[in-house]
């Protein structure tokens, strides 16, 4: 039986463990913190049809379809809030119109909302917006519980786990900080931005984000996840520090407020100056935010790649990777797990893996792995 060792128990690592274990492979999940305790717990858990490159769109659409086929337990707090994109001026509204067509072409219904109706749907929005775009199929989940659920499924299918700090990875072997080693036919690196600490050539870097949550309200503040049209520019941009309004209603009556992106920051401290910019940005769209009480703020590290596409596939014989999803790790986890499993098992991929090939940044184009040679054979 082919033995897999997966490093990282976030949304991606647990999804890969679940996929491989359910395919009948021998799986060990290696991690040092709680399941889903890293970027998985730090994010908003928004399952969002974010427009992007054709590769991003295909991975997202496949993944959202897989998420719909999962029935998650109640503790994952699935919230069918949809996404309401809002435009401040006609230029942004035109962007939302093109976004609507991209989504519709990909099979996701998207409804343009005239300015007058925005105020009916979301009375807290500032009154002078140009219009919006509503995507009702988008949802939010409590991602650390979803990771725990995928781990439960992997465990039921025979997967084991080892709680240990990983010191180094090599093809077919993991060295733990305590001196022990774990042998496997294939090691899968799924440790988010920390993957680069284990494989320094990996083109992934941390992109820090802040979030803030309010205390509970007896009546809902907003009904949709509300995102400014410029969010996509912030997400795909290259600025050293950017903020964009992205606000989510929680089932508890709390309000989760984002978002920020910072390059080149290694420490996880909450930075008051960035937090202030982020809240001012959110208050530009939702002035009533100033009435809410902040309960906690925290940060997380997105795993970003130079071209914005994730890294899914072989690094070399016996070593594969699944990370680099930036802000879309939760959204894209099921399709990432499906694709990675198909690649490492030598099965025909459901979607084209080329846009996510981890070797695409190599100075000289690396020889594409020969599927016959690299496939680890059919799983018994």
């Amino acid at each position: 039986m082919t033995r897999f060792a997966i490093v990282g128990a976030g949304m991606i690592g647990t999804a890969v463990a679940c996929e491989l274990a359910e395919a009948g492979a021998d799986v060990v999940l290696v991690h040092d913190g709680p399941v889903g305790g890293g970027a998985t717990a730090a994010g908003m858990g928004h399952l969002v049809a974010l427009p992007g490159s054709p590769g991003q769109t295909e991975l997202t659409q496949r993944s959202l379809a897989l998420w719909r086929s999962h029935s998650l337990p109640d503790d994952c707090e699935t919230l069918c809030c949809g996404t309401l994109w809002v435009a401040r001026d006609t230029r942004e509204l035109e962007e939302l119109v093109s976004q609507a067509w991209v989504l519709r072409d990909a099979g996701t219904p998207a409804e343009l909302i005239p300015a007058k109706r925005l105020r009916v749907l979301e009375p807290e929005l500032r009154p002078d917006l140009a219009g919006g775009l509503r995507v009702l199929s988008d949802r939010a989940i409590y991602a650390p519980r979803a990771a725990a659920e995928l781990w439960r499924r992997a465990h039921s299918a025979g997967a084991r786990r080892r709680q240990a700090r990983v010191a180094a990875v090599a093809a077919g072997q993991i060295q733990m900080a305590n001196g022990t080693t774990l042998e496997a036919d294939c090691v899968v690196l799924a440790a988010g931005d920390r993957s680069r600490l284990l494989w320094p050539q990996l083109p992934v870097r941390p992109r820090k984000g802040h979030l803030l949550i309010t205390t509970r309200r007896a009546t809902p503040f907003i009904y949709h996840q509300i995102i400014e049209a410029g969010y996509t520019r912030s997400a795909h941009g290259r600025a050293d520090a950017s903020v964009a309004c992205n606000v989510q209603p929680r089932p508890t009556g709390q309000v989760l407020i984002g978002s920020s992106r910072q390059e080149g920051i290694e420490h996880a401290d909450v930075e008051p100056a960035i937090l202030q910019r982020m809240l001012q940005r959110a208050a530009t769209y939702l002035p009533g935010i100033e009435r809410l009480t902040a309960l906690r703020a925290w940060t997380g590290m997105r795993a970003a790649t130079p071209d914005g596409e994730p890294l899914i596939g072989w690094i070399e014989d016996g070593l594969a990777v699944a990370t680099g999803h930036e802000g879309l790790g939760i959204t894209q986890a099921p399709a990432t797990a499906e694709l990675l499993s198909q690649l490492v098992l030598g099965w025909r991929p459901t979607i084209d893996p080329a846009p996510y090939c981890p070797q695409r940044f190599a100075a000289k184009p690396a020889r594409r792995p020969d599927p016959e040679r690299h496939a680890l054979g059919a799983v018994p």
Partner: protein
Amino acid sequence: MSLRIQLWIDDRAVSVPAGSNVAAAMLSLGGAHRSVHGEPRAPVCGMGVCWECRVWLDGIETRGCLLSAADGMRVRTDG
């Protein structure tokens, strides 16, 4: 004997020594607010960090541990 004052937390009268804070008054009731699933909660840190003693006073949400109790004060834990 120290001077005692009386305040109301969610319409429950509680008597505490003058100079107490509202979190102490909540503790003397055995806790006050409930979690989102209805489980009892109580002040933990007593120094403004955990927010487990949050109360509403005159329409403003604040932390009971940073709020001096006053005679006749009325606070609510549910907004």
